[in-house]
């Protein structure tokens, strides 16, 4: 039996209803993902305050470390003889241990590293060793890296969140005029959302 134009039209209407339903489902899922993004963002904000707190404590401890280090440096001469004598005996052992480790684990360019290490040890002072200078340097280096990484992450997030704010708040989830409680997950200026609200007239 041939299908009439009217039947084709009815079938088209029927199929369109299904597609319409699927678009609505997609929008619902988008809304769910949006909620998840907001939740993740809340967790991120909590983490950020913990980071700020840890940063403050770390900086205080670093300042104290620097302070003590500077004061100690001012009285470097004391015990220098004892330390220098011990340092002369420490160096060969340190070199040997390090070279063994390097040959066993790192397996490349031992010759070059050996020369560099010798130079490094000869230039280092026992006092630096005594005050754990390597640990202080390592801490300072970490501090610089951590600050840099945090800055870059914050910068990325600020850019991403301003886009997300526009996306979720202004264009696709506009605020109801009667809303008194604004809500904004990302930026500091709260706004409302409406796109998926049943009373929305946005789509029309």
């Amino acid at each position: 039996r041939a299908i009439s134009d009217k039947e084709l039209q009815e079938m088209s209407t029927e199929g369109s209803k299904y597609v319409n339903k699927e678009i609505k489902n997609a929008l619902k899922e988008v809304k769910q993902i949006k909620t998840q993004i907001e939740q993740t963002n809340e967790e991120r904000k909590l983490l950020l305050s913990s980071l700020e707190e840890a940063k403050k404590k770390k900086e205080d401890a670093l300042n104290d470390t620097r302070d003590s280090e500077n004061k100690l440096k001012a009285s470097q001469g004391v015990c220098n003889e004892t330390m220098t004598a011990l340092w002369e005996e420490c160096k060969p052992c340190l070199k040997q241990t390090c070279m063994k480790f390097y040959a066993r684990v790192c397996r490349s360019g031992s010759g070059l590293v050996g020369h560099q290490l010798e130079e490094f040890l000869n230039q280092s002072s026992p006092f630096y060793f005594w005050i754990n200078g390597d640990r202080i340097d390592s801490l300072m280096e970490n501090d610089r890296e951590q600050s840099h990484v945090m800055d870059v992450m914050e910068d990325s997030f600020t850019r991403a969140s301003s886009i997300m704010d526009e996306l979720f708040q202004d264009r696709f989830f506009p605020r109801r005029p009667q809303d008194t409680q604004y809500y904004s997950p990302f930026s500091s200026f709260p706004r409302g959302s409406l796109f998926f609200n049943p009373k929305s007239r946005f789509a029309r």
Partner: protein
Amino acid sequence: NVMPFPLLEPLNFHDVFQPFYDMIRQAQQAMDAHLQRTPYHFPVTEFTENNDRTVCKEIRHNSTGCLRMKDQCEKCQEILEVDCSASSPTQTLLRQQLNTSLQLAEKFSRLYDQLLQSYQQKMLDTSTLLKQLNEQFTWVSQLANLTQSDDQYYLQVFTVNSHSSDPSIPSGLTKVVVKLFNSFPITVTVPQEVSSPNFMENVAEKALQQYRRKSHI
């Protein structure tokens, strides 16, 4: 309601969805930027087998990695234990203060690293959600370029054929050619008669699946 409303203008998918798609992509790119730019290797705080590679790198870089091995040399240990209290009582006190603040700073530095890692993970989670959002929306956003006509149907049926009208089609199957919006024609075959109650639902489902698959590709 996203069905066309006859008295008003049809829904313009280009205006509605394309910016959405573009913005999700932009947000995701911004979020991922830091990972591509600065892959942060969280520092090693203790000398263990697991971080050998980092120690090798430190040794190659400026030899400081070797100082991590001081515990294995007796004379090096003795330097750390030198007591200068006899000649300078303040020096001993200062050294104690230094060690205390150093340990504290190391502790907070490790804590900061852990928090930083969690923070980075949260950003990755957000980025993943944006990616999911993008994938979820790609098929709709792709409609942008295909919905420029004023056609009132989302899905239009063009031809319906079964074994009786086309002997090449196996018996019991129905072949339908449809267009979603003004996309390319999509051919779907369903194991049903036109008269079946959910015939069009199955046709539309299959057509949409094909459409989504192709949009995603």
